[in-house]
Protein backbone atom coordinates (compact mmCIF):
# COMPACT_ATOMS: atom_id res chain seq x y z
CA UNK A 1 0.00 0.00 0.00
CA UNK A 2 1.41 3.36 -1.03
CA UNK A 3 0.04 5.23 2.00
CA UNK A 4 2.43 3.33 4.26
CA UNK A 5 1.11 2.50 7.70
CA UNK A 6 -2.15 4.47 7.66
CA UNK A 7 -5.49 2.67 7.59
CA UNK A 8 -7.56 3.19 4.46
CA UNK A 9 -11.37 3.24 4.28
CA UNK A 10 -13.19 2.82 0.97
CA UNK A 11 -16.96 3.08 0.43
CA UNK A 12 -17.73 0.66 -2.42
CA UNK A 13 -20.58 1.61 -4.73
CA UNK A 14 -23.84 0.02 -3.52
CA UNK A 15 -21.76 -1.82 -0.94
CA UNK A 16 -20.02 -1.66 2.42
CA UNK A 17 -17.09 0.33 3.80
CA UNK A 18 -13.89 -1.65 3.38
CA UNK A 19 -11.25 -0.91 5.99
CA UNK A 20 -7.69 -1.92 5.26
CA UNK A 21 -5.30 -1.97 8.18
CA UNK A 22 -3.61 -1.31 10.45
CA UNK A 23 -6.54 -0.38 12.70
CA UNK A 24 -8.47 -1.52 15.77
CA UNK A 25 -12.24 -1.80 16.02
CA UNK A 26 -13.83 -0.88 19.37
CA UNK A 27 -17.38 -0.44 20.65
CA UNK A 28 -18.54 2.79 22.32
CA UNK A 29 -17.21 1.58 25.66
CA UNK A 30 -13.78 1.00 24.21
CA UNK A 31 -14.01 -2.80 24.17
CA UNK A 32 -12.27 -4.31 21.20
CA UNK A 33 -14.51 -5.98 18.59
CA UNK A 34 -12.74 -9.09 17.35
CA UNK A 35 -12.25 -9.93 13.68
CA UNK A 36 -9.79 -12.21 11.96
CA UNK A 37 -9.37 -10.83 8.47
CA UNK A 38 -6.79 -8.18 7.64
CA UNK A 39 -9.45 -6.28 5.70
CA UNK A 40 -12.99 -5.88 7.04
CA UNK A 41 -16.29 -4.73 5.49
CA UNK A 42 -18.46 -2.52 7.69
CA UNK A 43 -22.22 -2.36 7.08
CA UNK A 44 -23.32 0.83 5.34
CA UNK A 45 -26.96 0.03 4.58
CA UNK A 46 -28.04 -0.75 8.16
CA UNK A 47 -29.61 -4.13 7.28
CA UNK A 48 -26.78 -6.51 8.20
CA UNK A 49 -27.49 -9.19 10.78
CA UNK A 50 -23.77 -9.23 11.65
CA UNK A 51 -23.29 -5.55 12.51
CA UNK A 52 -20.96 -3.77 12.51
CA UNK A 53 -19.83 -6.13 9.75
CA UNK A 54 -21.41 -6.40 6.31
CA UNK A 55 -23.21 -9.68 5.57
CA UNK A 56 -24.22 -8.96 1.96
CA UNK A 57 -27.88 -8.11 2.73
CA UNK A 58 -27.64 -4.81 0.81
CA UNK A 59 -27.78 -6.84 -2.42
CA UNK A 60 -31.10 -8.46 -1.47
CA UNK A 61 -32.66 -5.11 -0.57
CA UNK A 62 -31.39 -3.25 -3.64
CA UNK A 63 -29.69 -0.61 -1.50
CA UNK A 64 -27.89 2.09 -3.52
CA UNK A 65 -25.07 4.51 -2.73
CA UNK A 66 -22.24 6.11 -4.64
CA UNK A 67 -18.62 5.39 -3.84
CA UNK A 68 -17.63 9.04 -3.63
CA UNK A 69 -18.99 11.82 -1.44
CA UNK A 70 -22.67 12.69 -1.84
CA UNK A 71 -23.72 16.11 -3.04
CA UNK A 72 -25.36 18.25 -0.41
CA UNK A 73 -29.15 17.93 -0.60
CA UNK A 74 -31.43 20.64 -1.94
CA UNK A 75 -34.69 21.15 -0.05
CA UNK A 76 -37.86 20.45 -2.02
CA UNK A 77 -41.29 21.64 -1.05
CA UNK A 78 -44.27 19.47 -1.81
CA UNK A 79 -47.67 21.13 -2.25
Amino acid sequence: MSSGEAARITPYRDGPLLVRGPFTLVDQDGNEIAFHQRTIALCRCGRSSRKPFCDGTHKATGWRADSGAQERPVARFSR
Partner: protein
Amino acid sequence: VTLATVNLMSLFGLHRRRRGLIVGHLALFEMTSSIPNRRYATALRRLGVRAARATAFFDEHVTADAIHENVAAVDLAGGLARLEPALVGDILLGARALVELEARWAAHLLDAWAAGRSSLRAPLGQAVAA
Protein backbone atom coordinates in the same frame (compact mmCIF):
# COMPACT_ATOMS: atom_id res chain seq x y z
CA VAL B 1 -23.64 -32.62 -14.57
CA THR B 2 -22.84 -32.87 -10.87
CA LEU B 3 -19.13 -32.15 -11.43
CA ALA B 4 -19.57 -29.74 -14.36
CA THR B 5 -19.21 -26.61 -12.22
CA VAL B 6 -15.84 -27.84 -10.98
CA ASN B 7 -14.76 -28.73 -14.51
CA LEU B 8 -15.72 -25.24 -15.68
CA MET B 9 -13.34 -23.73 -13.13
CA SER B 10 -10.54 -26.03 -14.31
CA LEU B 11 -11.26 -25.19 -17.96
CA PHE B 12 -11.04 -21.45 -17.27
CA GLY B 13 -8.24 -21.59 -14.71
CA LEU B 14 -5.65 -23.82 -16.32
CA HIS B 15 -4.58 -21.55 -19.18
CA ARG B 16 -3.35 -17.98 -19.01
CA ARG B 17 -5.21 -16.96 -22.15
CA ARG B 18 -8.49 -17.74 -20.38
CA ARG B 19 -7.69 -15.40 -17.47
CA GLY B 20 -10.59 -13.09 -18.30
CA LEU B 21 -13.01 -16.02 -18.07
CA ILE B 22 -11.75 -17.26 -14.70
CA VAL B 23 -11.70 -13.74 -13.26
CA GLY B 24 -15.30 -13.14 -14.34
CA HIS B 25 -16.28 -16.53 -12.94
CA LEU B 26 -14.55 -15.89 -9.60
CA ALA B 27 -15.89 -12.35 -9.27
CA LEU B 28 -19.52 -13.36 -9.77
CA PHE B 29 -19.09 -16.33 -7.45
CA GLU B 30 -17.79 -14.06 -4.68
CA MET B 31 -20.48 -11.48 -5.41
CA THR B 32 -23.27 -13.97 -4.84
CA SER B 33 -22.01 -16.24 -2.05
CA SER B 34 -22.44 -14.36 1.25
CA ILE B 35 -26.25 -14.62 1.35
CA PRO B 36 -26.36 -18.36 0.46
CA ASN B 37 -23.67 -19.07 3.07
CA ARG B 38 -25.76 -17.28 5.68
CA ARG B 39 -28.76 -19.41 4.66
CA TYR B 40 -26.72 -22.63 4.93
CA ALA B 41 -25.54 -21.66 8.43
CA THR B 42 -28.98 -20.63 9.68
CA ALA B 43 -30.57 -23.73 8.11
CA LEU B 44 -28.08 -25.97 9.94
CA ARG B 45 -28.93 -24.24 13.23
CA ARG B 46 -32.65 -24.62 12.48
CA LEU B 47 -32.02 -28.36 12.13
CA GLY B 48 -30.39 -28.36 15.57
CA VAL B 49 -26.78 -28.49 14.38
CA ARG B 50 -25.03 -26.26 16.92
CA ALA B 51 -21.46 -27.57 16.62
CA ALA B 52 -19.17 -24.80 15.41
CA ARG B 53 -17.21 -27.31 13.34
CA ALA B 54 -20.33 -27.82 11.22
CA THR B 55 -21.33 -24.17 10.81
CA ALA B 56 -17.99 -22.31 11.02
CA PHE B 57 -17.22 -22.63 7.31
CA PHE B 58 -20.54 -21.07 6.29
CA ASP B 59 -20.52 -18.44 9.06
CA GLU B 60 -16.99 -17.41 8.13
CA HIS B 61 -17.93 -16.97 4.47
CA VAL B 62 -20.84 -14.64 5.25
CA THR B 63 -18.58 -11.80 6.39
CA ALA B 64 -15.52 -12.93 4.40
CA ASP B 65 -17.41 -12.95 1.09
CA ALA B 66 -19.04 -9.63 1.94
CA ILE B 67 -15.47 -8.30 1.74
CA HIS B 68 -14.51 -10.44 -1.24
CA GLU B 69 -17.51 -9.39 -3.35
CA ASN B 70 -16.16 -5.84 -3.53
CA VAL B 71 -12.53 -6.79 -3.92
CA ALA B 72 -13.35 -9.37 -6.61
CA ALA B 73 -15.82 -7.22 -8.58
CA VAL B 74 -14.26 -3.77 -8.39
CA ASP B 75 -10.57 -4.37 -7.73
CA LEU B 76 -9.94 -7.75 -9.40
CA ALA B 77 -12.36 -7.92 -12.35
CA GLY B 78 -12.61 -4.14 -12.68
CA GLY B 79 -8.85 -3.84 -12.40
CA LEU B 80 -8.26 -6.42 -15.13
CA ALA B 81 -10.84 -4.72 -17.37
CA ARG B 82 -9.08 -1.36 -16.94
CA LEU B 83 -5.68 -2.95 -17.52
CA GLU B 84 -6.71 -5.12 -20.48
CA PRO B 85 -9.94 -3.75 -22.01
CA ALA B 86 -9.81 -6.45 -24.69
CA LEU B 87 -10.67 -9.00 -21.99
CA VAL B 88 -13.98 -7.38 -20.97
CA GLY B 89 -15.94 -9.78 -23.18
CA ASP B 90 -14.20 -12.77 -21.61
CA ILE B 91 -14.82 -11.46 -18.08
CA LEU B 92 -18.55 -11.15 -18.78
CA LEU B 93 -18.63 -14.53 -20.55
CA GLY B 94 -16.96 -16.21 -17.56
CA ALA B 95 -19.59 -14.72 -15.24
CA ARG B 96 -22.47 -15.71 -17.53
CA ALA B 97 -21.10 -19.23 -17.94
CA LEU B 98 -21.11 -19.59 -14.15
CA VAL B 99 -24.76 -18.48 -13.90
CA GLU B 100 -25.87 -20.72 -16.75
CA LEU B 101 -24.08 -23.82 -15.51
CA GLU B 102 -25.00 -23.29 -11.86
CA ALA B 103 -28.68 -23.06 -12.85
CA ARG B 104 -28.47 -26.38 -14.73
CA TRP B 105 -26.49 -27.91 -11.87
CA ALA B 106 -29.04 -26.81 -9.25
CA ALA B 107 -32.00 -28.01 -11.34
CA HIS B 108 -30.31 -31.38 -11.90
CA LEU B 109 -29.52 -31.91 -8.21
CA LEU B 110 -32.93 -30.74 -6.97
CA ASP B 111 -34.72 -32.94 -9.54
CA ALA B 112 -32.66 -35.93 -8.39
CA TRP B 113 -33.38 -35.07 -4.76
CA ALA B 114 -37.14 -34.80 -5.43
CA ALA B 115 -37.11 -38.11 -7.31
CA GLY B 116 -35.16 -39.84 -4.54
CA ARG B 117 -32.26 -40.85 -6.79
CA SER B 118 -28.57 -39.99 -7.03
CA SER B 119 -27.56 -37.02 -9.19
CA LEU B 120 -24.50 -39.02 -10.28
CA ARG B 121 -24.51 -41.16 -13.41
CA ALA B 122 -23.82 -44.23 -11.29
CA PRO B 123 -24.35 -44.56 -7.51
CA LEU B 124 -21.17 -43.77 -5.62
CA GLY B 125 -20.42 -47.37 -4.53
CA GLN B 126 -20.45 -48.60 -8.15
CA ALA B 127 -18.40 -45.69 -9.40
CA VAL B 128 -15.68 -46.37 -6.84
CA ALA B 129 -15.70 -50.11 -7.62
CA ALA B 130 -15.51 -49.49 -11.38
